[in-house]
């Protein structure tokens, strides 16, 4: 008789799977926030201020109200009651300060500030009427110029956001002494303008005003729980009266990490009119809220003659608004990547008459590592060292800035495998590559580092009456593939086929979830899903132990395997208990467990926790015309266990493209005289297009991490972006001998 064999218990994790919502997305069946169709829906269109600072002195609505279909015009003089305390406007991702309060009073604090909402029966009527609202102002002087106001730079206030974005450590060692004694030194600046997220889906909210006065809100957000907290705060409503739903998000990149103003306005109009209201921003309005801050960095690095980095000074000056201290970790990375003993770090904010910046893909990391890694190449050049050899010479398995060992760090393997795949041994010193026609050739590389963040999260697991698994969490997903990966984790934990797992998500009535950002979703929410499933497994097993006839005898949980919807006794695999028997034993009722996973601080706090990457890039630069082409690139990533190689690869490819944007394309042009952004559309704000992208290759190196979480997952959305941009800049240097200090590098700069 053949023994039934035990199937592999981890069939799903590590298996390439396309996103479960992928087909819906590419066939137009996914419903985005603005696409719900509740009855009698009204449409709101936002009127933005045409001055940068001052006070509204009058709003003439007459012409707008003449337009057929206009229902109401809402603004600071006609609106529902709003919260009084700053705290009520706070959200999970809010920096310290006084959050902007839409329609609160007559004060204008930044260009394009939303000041009124025209609500009409159709979008077109609302938009046209909005163009007819006549607003008069008392103008006040303003200043939006970062460079001119560096003397006002000051340290950011500390808030809860410092947990995710730590302030730089205090100086250590003796920078001045070490810098003076260094045999090779480099001093330089790196500057980039503001950038915007540009998700394809524009921000939109539909608020459904329910018969009992409760609200159901379809919002474009990266956190349903976050929007729920925010709305209940602003309008003083009970959390349970506010339900936020957001299953599909057409790109976020950070733009949905804070509730945006269309959300408040949609709710305001719904409460005021007691009707259902849709407010969707247009493409221009997508440039009227948060953005990656314009940042100027000053670096001084020193190294010894044998190539040891001995001194690092990294200072950054970034814009923020006058009302919030948005900050990011820009200057922390050199001390984490390299074991340098003498460090001076400074991160300062310059408050200006602009809207607060907002986290945007790899906030701080992309900015800071771009500077660090381009300066590293300058030092390598001075030392006559190969850039990779220079980095290997300064390799460390301890984060010297915190004195803690890394929970795991396979950056060396990233360097080695990517270098090999790329053919780094073919690299020639600067300016020495043979020319291809008019084109100079350059090879460059850079390291990347990103935090592996752990937070508490909660999930519910239910064994349904059919013996299948339902997972619930309010988490939502901008497209990275989180729904798929959560289902994979759950399937493995309970030994069920993938098809037997359903994931219910993106609804604030489910277990609260952190926002989807920081590359922490898989580690954080995945751990909660795993914990909930494990608890459910335990519960199932306890019932199985007391089934009639005690088929499992005195077996304990480790003595059985959950597989194929059955509990199988390891010692005698012919003993199998289908989940449906358990349900029957439970009188036909489903089994459910909710579990909060709280990371063990004693365990993880002892370690530095980061994912790493290395990018190798070839560029061609037209010697006569200065046109730059990224012809090929390889990125290797060490991010713990790779749950789904297909969605993971897509994340890194997207990150590499984003790196091309950072290095060569993206910037929002701020007019200093007018105080506002000028290239506010997708024709004039240049995101890379296909023609800008050469051959891209992704490697995942093996990395085991037993510290970070039970899954061994670190997250990888952002790390692939970070190493790419400096690698491009370094390749340009290798081709041309010119040091890149302003990004993006544009035609005319070379």
């Amino acid at each position, binding site marked *: 008789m053949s023994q039934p064999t035990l199937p592999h218990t981890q069939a799903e994790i590590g298996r390439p799977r396309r996103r479960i919502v992928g087909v819906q997305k590419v066939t137009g069946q996914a419903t985005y926030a603005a696409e719900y169709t509740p009855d009698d829906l009204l449409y709101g269109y936002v009127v933005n201020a045409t001055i940068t600072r001052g006070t509204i002195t009058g709003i003439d609505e007459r012409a707008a109200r003449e337009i057929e279909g206009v229902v109401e015009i809402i603004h600071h003089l006609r609106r529902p009651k709003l919260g009084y305390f700053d705290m009520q406007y706070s959200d999970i991702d809010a920096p310290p300060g006084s959050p902007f309060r839409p329609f609160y009073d007559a004060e204008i604090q930044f260009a394009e500030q939303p000041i009124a909402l025209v609500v009409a029966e159709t979008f*077109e009527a609302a938009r046209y009427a909005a163009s007819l609202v006549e607003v008069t102002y008392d103008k006040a002087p303003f200043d939006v110029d970062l460079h001119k106001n560096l003397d006002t730079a000051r340290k950011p206030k500390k808030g809860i956001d410092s947990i995710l974005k730590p302030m730089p450590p205090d100086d250590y060692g003796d920078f001045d002494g070490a810098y003076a004694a260094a045999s090779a030194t480099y001093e330089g600046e790196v500057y980039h303008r503001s950038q915007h997220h540009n998700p394809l889906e524009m921000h939109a909210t539909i608020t459904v005003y329910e018969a009992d006065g409760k609200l159901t809100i379809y919002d474009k957000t990266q956190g349903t729980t976050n929007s729920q907290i925010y709305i209940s705060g602003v309008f003083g409503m009970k959390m349970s009266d506010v339900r936020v739903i957001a299953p599909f998000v057409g790109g976020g990149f950070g733009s949905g990490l804070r509730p945006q103003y269309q959300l408040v306005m949609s709710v305001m109009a719904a409460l005021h009119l007691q009707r259902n209201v849709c407010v969707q921003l247009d493409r221009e309005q997508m440039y009227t809220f948060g953005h990656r801050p314009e940042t100027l960095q000053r670096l001084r690095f020193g190294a010894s003659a044998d190539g040891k980095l001995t001194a690092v000074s990294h200072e950054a000056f970034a814009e923020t608004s006058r009302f919030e201290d948005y900050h990011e970790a820009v200057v922390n990375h050199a001390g984490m990547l390299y074991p340098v003993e003498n460090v001076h770090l400074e991160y300062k904010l310059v408050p200006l008459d602009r809207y607060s910046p907002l986290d945007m893909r790899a906030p701080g990391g992309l900015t800071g590592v771009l500077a660090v890694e381009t300066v590293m190449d300058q030092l390598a050049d001075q030392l006559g060292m190969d850039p990779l050899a220079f980095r290997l010479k300064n390799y460390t398995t301890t984060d010297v800035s915190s004195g803690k060992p890394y929970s795991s760090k396979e950056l060396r393997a990233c360097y080695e495998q990517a270098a090999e795949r790329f053919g780094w041994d073919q690299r020639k010193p600067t300016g020495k590559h043979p020319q291809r026609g008019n084109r100079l050739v350059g090879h460059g590389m850079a390291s990347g580092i990103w935090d592996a963040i752990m937070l508490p999260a909660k999930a519910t697991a239910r064994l349904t009456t059919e013996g299948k698994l339902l997972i619930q969490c309010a988490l939502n997903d901008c497209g990275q593939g989180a729904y798929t990966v959560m289902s994979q984790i759950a399937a493995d934990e309970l030994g069920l086929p993938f098809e037997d797992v359903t994931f219910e998500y993106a609804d604030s009535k489910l277990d609260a979830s952190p926002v989807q950002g920081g590359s922490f979703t898989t580690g954080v929410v995945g751990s909660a899903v795993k914990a909930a499933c494990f608890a459910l497994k335990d519960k199932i097993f306890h019932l199985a132990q007391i089934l009639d006839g005690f088929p499992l005898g005195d077996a304990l949980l480790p003595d059985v395997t959950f597989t194929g919807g059955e509990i199988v006794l390891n010692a005698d695999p012919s003993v199998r208990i289908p989940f449906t028997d358990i349900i029957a034993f439970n009188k036909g009722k489903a089994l459910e467990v909710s579990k909060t996973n709280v990371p063990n601080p004693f365990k993880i706090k002892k370690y530095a926790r980061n994912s790493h990457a290395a990018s190798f890039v070839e560029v061609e630069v037209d010697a006569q015309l*200065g046109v730059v082409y990224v012809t090929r690139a390889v990125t290797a990533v060490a991010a713990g266990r790779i749950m789904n190689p297909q969605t993971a690869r897509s994340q890194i490819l997207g990150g590499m493209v984003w790196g091309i944007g950072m290095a060569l394309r993206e910037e929002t042009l701020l007019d200093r*005289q*007018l105080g506002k952004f000028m290239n506010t559309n997708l024709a004039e704000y*240049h995101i890379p297009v296909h*023609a800008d992208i050469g051959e891209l290759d992704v490697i995942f190196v093996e990395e085991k991490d037993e510290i970070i979480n039970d899954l061994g997952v670190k997250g990888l959305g952002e790390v692939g972006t970070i190493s790419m941009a400096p690698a491009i800049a370094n390749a340009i240097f290798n081709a041309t001998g010119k040091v890149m200090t302003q990004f993006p590098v544009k*035609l*005319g700069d070379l």
Partner: protein
Amino acid sequence: MNDFAYYKATDIDGAVNAAAGPKNNYIGGGTNLIDLWKYDLAHPEKLVDLNGIDELKEITELPDGGLRLGALVTNNATAYHPIVQERYPLLSRTILAGATPQIRNAATNGGNLLQRTRCYYFYDSSSPCNKRVPGSGCPAREGHNRLHAILGYSDACIATMPSDMCVALAALEAVVRVKGPEGERCIPFIEFHRLPGEQPEKDNTLREDELILSVDLPARGFAGHHTYLKLRDRHSYAFALVSVAMGYELDGEGNISVARIALGGVAHKPWRVPAAEELLVGKSPTEDQFARAAEAILEGASGFEHNTFKIDLAHRAILRAGAMAHDPSTQRPGAKPSL
């Protein structure tokens, strides 16, 4: 959207009659007009739709060996037309270097000639702009002027004409055939667009209600030696910072017998300097000779904070175009630099 009247024309005279009066607009593909409308910059009271006029949708050969491109033929249909590809490959390549396939499928030849500048300040209805609101000022001079002119600008306006197609049409010496209430007339291409001077609100010399019927190409198409080189801030789907349309013919000794050079992205109109082209006649197509022509073409050029690089870039681009034009088979799609 404001209320407006809509008239679907089926013949030329019907269209011209319907369009008489201010604030009446013809509409071709609508890729520019509808954008301007949405941006609150255009407010037509009557829209005269040209898409029902079949006789404007044809490409026909002319008795003098030239080719007539109907005003309602789309940009893509023009670029892929076999006669255009064979005899006017410069025009075909130039059109294909512009916009995106989707836009080119909708955009018409008539509309392309009349597309408005991409100056940021022009598009922002709350900024001052002399082109949009005469006398209100020009923030571009002190502001973001990377896209802006280095030649032929005025105190009032430094905007550029954004079209690619028009740069090739200028080099090809096309003629624009138009009809208005007073009848038909022909405008040589180089006189079609104008410099801003004191009237930046006027992009061209077309009269208020005149209809573009066709763009007529002369027989000479420079199929042997031509290029369109487009330099821009990304490799596709971006307007030219500097572009060069060049065509020349060589005599038995390999010397240039006739040459045409037009620049895009540098002025309020495609920039041509016939005297500079004359310098090349009888000369061999070498870098030195093109450098002399480039100097003459760019004489008097001066820039602003963000666009001065375009003077040197245009010079280099002319040299490269001269080399690229010699053997068009080496050229890359999208008018990217080759060689």
